[in-house]
């Protein structure tokens, strides 16, 4: 079988697998080739398809290869009755997912402390949707359930690996914030290190309160 034929078969297999997609191993097993060779072939196909202006593409999510339409065709596909409509997650769900994704494994209590609201229902809905799952039990009283994200989570957000999420620190520079905070508390006259408060600080504080 020449490379061209192999690519043909890979296309057919990925097409048949549809949304379930296929892992490198599955493709390799069916065709009877090494995984490395399949990976190389798929990489080539991805480039070729783009050049040939194909109407579909090969994407890799959660270590699974699958065929999808092109994002720029979304307006046409939305008009298509057969295309599954995607309901978007609520803000509560997204917020909760963000906490779980970045802090996993995490207990429901921790989630609720951060969000400031009860989150049992939201966690449950996310669990039902298969986006999060129980990954163990925390130590300590009551041994609360620990939650983490699933493979479906990666699929849902089109990620190949959880590490593809931007690191939390890239969004915030914590050191700067810490310095700001120190500075601020001084300015507010609530310097933690000094036990005695001077009259001038007190005056500052009063003004602040009355703003």
């Amino acid at each position, binding site marked *: 079988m020449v490379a061209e034929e192999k690519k043909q078969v890979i296309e057919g297999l990925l097409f048949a697998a549809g949304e379930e997609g296929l892992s490198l191993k599955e493709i390799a097993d069916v065709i009877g080739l090494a995984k490395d060779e399949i990976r190389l072939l798929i990489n080539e196909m991805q480039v070729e398809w783009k050049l040939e202006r194909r109407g579909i593409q090969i994407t890799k999510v959660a270590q699974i290869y699958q065929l999808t339409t092109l994002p720029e065709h979304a307006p046409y596909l939305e008009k298509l009755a057969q295309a599954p409509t995607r309901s978007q997650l609520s803000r509560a769900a997204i917020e909760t997912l963000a906490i779980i994704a970045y802090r996993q494994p995490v207990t429901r209590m921790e989630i609720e402390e951060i969000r400031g*609201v009860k989150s049992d229902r939201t966690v449950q809905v996310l669990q039902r949707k298969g986006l999060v799952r129980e990954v163990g039990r925390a130590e300590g009283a009551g041994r609360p359930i620990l939650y983490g994200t699933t493979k479906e989570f990666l699929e*849902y*957000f089109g990620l190949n690996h959880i590490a593809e999420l931007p690191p939390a620190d890239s969004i915030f520079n914590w050191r700067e914030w810490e310095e700001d905070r120190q500075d601020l508390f001084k300015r507010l006259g609530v310097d933690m290190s000094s036990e005695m408060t001077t009259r001038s600080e007190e005056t500052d504080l009063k003004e602040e309160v009355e703003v």
Partner: protein
Amino acid sequence: MDIQIKLEMFEGPLDLLLHLIEKAEVDIYEIPIAKITEQYMQVIKEAQEWQLEVASEFLVMAATLLAIKSRMLLPKQDILDEEQIGAEEEWFIDPREELVDRLLEYKRYKRLGEVLKEKEIERSKVYTRAPMDLSPYTKEVNPVYGLTVDDLFQALVEVLKTQKRAEPITKVEREEISVSARMDEIDRQLRLEGKLIFSKLLCWDEVNKERVITTFLAILELMKLKRVICYQDQLFGEIFIESFQVEEEREAIGS
């Protein structure tokens, strides 16, 4: 200051507070607590005037804000007096610090959520298709290969367990049967079959909490009225239910 805010727009008190602080164009670190508290209370009050349900979390935060505010207003001298009474360390921690920390933490995840939201939107632009029906290519592929009825049973247990924790949004309309009606049913069944096994009293299609409890209560009532008798012939065994007369007769024959 006009506050055209609907409470439902916010994910919780922290969310609302962040909004107020951002709207007031003040630094998150420099919360003018009196002003923010006033606005916060205004929102809660309006919501209550519109007879909207105000979640308890919002009220807890309102109480926290008021507590902080009143503490900030206390003359320092009073604080020092308190200190001498004994609660010194507590009084020297600025209550705003904890609030700032919580707000920062919350804001962080709110932003990370925005990152996820973008990914969601991106991903929702591509479509895939249902897997091809491969059944023509194979003879009798068992779609439940490796699964047993126990797995199925376990799945049901799990799903009912989680259902119990959260009230469904709308209630499934199911026939409700009163205890007395259920008592009559069991009575009738007993007369027909003489003896019933407790675990078989409920058909497999009646997995419904109320139904089970109603049945349970009905049997208790029947026992109390001395119309039935329940027994087990061995530990962990089935529970048998018999009509009281039948039991008496059996004992008479037995002895």
